């Protein structure tokens, strides 16, 4: 019988903690990369970038005063602290439970697709079996926006309700586009497996090049879903003060404000994997560093660039009217999405498939 030393017990527990909880891939992916922590870091950077980029175009500096040398980069940290310690006002007429739960549920559900995406081709680090991972990720991504409608209804405010109605119109419109254009790669590669999809793109032919219409469609659908310009319709501040978020304050408003970005982050990661080659051209090597961190870093950088392009549109566009956005979605983008699907089928037929 071996001696059970205290040191061994502790090291076993530590190893267990690390292996089964902290680096248990589903948990790790959800909490750290590409989940909550990475998302927060990227969102903080992205809000700063959005403000700085718009400011550059708009003859001004943007956030600067807090630290002129870094271009005002800590501004968002300061904002975060402010939101955290600000007073939380809950209107007496609001539905308390739904008012509090909905934003948090939205935040969590926005990140849920992250438990289904692989960050490397080494099966040891997959969060779930990858057989139908694209389908699962797409399905999970559709859960979050419903809670925006719940928030609007719970706020018991006219502007909120109008914003919530607009949001629900938009959900119905963009989801179909996003789902069809994401799934348009399936007939081409005969697989729902995200790892296979990325591995195919290792050859240098990104699916975005093979099917640019699907890429464009998905790009616009993401903008719509996360109310980015030119589709910033639910919380259009000129006529509806802040849309569904009118009654929110303090930390919960901060969650709401970041919520859209986090959803955009989740979609960007998905888009990177499916259309922009994932961790290609890097081939994951052995070990956790080369096999997991490097490829996931590549994905994060690519997805950040996608988000940066989306953020830059704020400086160029105004917002569409609700019915114009909807008609754009139903009359232009959905036919385009079907066309993209058709292109994939045609490409598969003519043998682009490896």
């Amino acid at each position: 019988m071996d001696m059970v030393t205290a040191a061994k017990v502790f090291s076993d527990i530590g190893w267990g903690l690390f292996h089964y909880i902290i680096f248990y891939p589903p948990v790790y992916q959800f909490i750290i990369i590409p989940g909550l922590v990475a998302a927060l870091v990227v969102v903080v950077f992205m809000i700063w970038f959005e403000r700085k980029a718009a400011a550059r175009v708009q003859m001004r500096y943007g956030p600067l005063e807090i630290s002129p040398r870094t271009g005002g980069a800590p501004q968002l940290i300061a904002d975060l602290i402010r939101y955290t310690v600000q007073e939380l006002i809950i209107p007496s007429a609001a539905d308390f439970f739904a008012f509090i739960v909905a934003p948090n549920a939205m935040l969590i559900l926005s990140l849920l697709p992250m438990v289904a995406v692989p960050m490397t081709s080494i099966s040891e680090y997959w969060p779930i079996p990858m057989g139908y991972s694209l389908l699962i990720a797409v399905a999970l991504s559709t859960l979050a926006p419903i809670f925006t409608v719940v928030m609007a209804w719970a706020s018991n405010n006219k502007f909120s309700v109008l914003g919530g109605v607009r949001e629900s119109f938009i959900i119905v419109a963009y989801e179909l586009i996003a789902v069809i254009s994401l799934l348009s790669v399936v007939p081409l590669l005969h697989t729902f497996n995200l790892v296979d999809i990325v591995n195919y793109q290792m050859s240098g032919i990104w699916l975005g090049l093979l099917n640019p219409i699907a890429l464009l469609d998905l790009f616009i659908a993401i903008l719509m879903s996360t109310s980015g310009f030119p589709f910033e319709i639910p919380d259009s501040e000129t006529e509806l003060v802040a849309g569904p978020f009118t009654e929110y304050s303090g930390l919960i408003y901060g969650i709401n404000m970041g919520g859209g970005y986090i959803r955009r982050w989740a979609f960007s990661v998905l888009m990177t994997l499916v259309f922009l080659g994932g961790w290609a051209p890097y081939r994951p090597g052995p070990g956790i560093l080369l096999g997991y961190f490097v490829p996931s870093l590549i994905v994060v950088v690519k997805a950040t660039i996608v988000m940066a392009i989306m953020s830059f549109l704020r400086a160029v566009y105004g917002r569409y009217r609700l019915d114009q956005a909807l008609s754009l979605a139903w009359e232009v983008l959905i036919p385009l999405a079907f066309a993209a699907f058709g292109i994939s089928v045609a490409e598969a037929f003519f043998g682009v498939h490896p």
Partner: protein
Amino acid sequence: MSEGSASGVPHLPGMEVRPVERNVYEVQIGPSHPGSGHMRIIVELDGDVMVRVDPDIGFVHRTMEKLAEGRGWIKNIPLFERMAILDACNTTLPYVEAVEKLLDIEPPERAKYLRALLCEINRIASHLYGIGIFAVFLGHSTIYMWAFGDREVFVQLAEDLTGARLTHSYPVFGGVRRDIPDDFPQNARKAVRYMRYRLDEYAKIYLNNPNIRKRLEGVGVISKTKAAELGIVGPNARASGIKYDVRLVEPYEAYPELDFEIPVFEEGDSLARAWQRVEEIKQSLNIIEQAVDWLEKHPREGFMHDKFWKTAPKLYKDVYEGNIPYAGKYRVKLMPLFATLKVPPGKAAARVEAGRGEIFYYVESDGKEVPYRVRVITPSFRNVIAFKYVMPGHRLMDLPAIYGSFDYFPPEWDR
């Protein structure tokens, strides 16, 4: 929504309780609202379509007409320019003209050109302000910043000319208060050239942007007859095809001698109103060039009516010529009698084309040191009525697209 809202609410003075129809959703846009600026629009929505629109104004009312009855004649000039400080010269000019009619004097030629020059600088600044506010209504923050940044160029010109950025108090009875500084002509020409090329960029990123075009095209259409019936003014009327501009029908100051066009659009929608302002800026730039050329060519004399300048002591001329080091240069000093001016009894009216449209003053004097009655009608006030009759039938998201296209300015219409 309709039943429960009125019950159990105490009826306070000034509170209005009225039934709302079923299936109608009443939204109050304003008064302290990012899209409105101290003005409320009560909108009744049927689905997404506005069925009744009631503009509720008066949140920044300052009783200018009453205050004017208690102040001396010249003291009203700084008062009235606070109606629309970004259009200060245009706003006070008809008052000055009306009083000049009562005094039976006419400013000399150079003063007329100087007034026209500042009027056009103000008009550009005012239009740029309007473009900027309109753009932020549509969510286009870049043009908002650009227009306000480029407006700074013209505010700087006005500052060089008058010594104040916005509240110029520039035209006074019989003349003006400053002559152009020496480096003004070259600065003005640079500003004109800069703005011309900037306007092309505005068109590229804003007016020809498919997103903005889609928002504005065919929205808030006002036909020519409808515009005449509602009596809307200025660029908004001209965008509906009405060939009416006070500079055209009753030219004042130096305008009869200047060569420029009055742009008229016939579409009558929000997009035409937006283009109207761009075209008017182009014409104003032409006028600035001509006025500056004229002022440069002609000798520096005749900036104040002889009645107020002939008897001026030598010191006044020294100040004008800059012989007194601390006093600046090209300042036109006022005779002390301005402080206690008495205007002969009579009634006079004058109108001027301000940035947002025709501004009208009715001035009545009974021979005292203060006016008996001053009636001011500002362009924004006459445009309010359009909201009531044009907006119904449009969608709620068209409200900013129509509201902004009229170039609203609450302090001006509330007076």
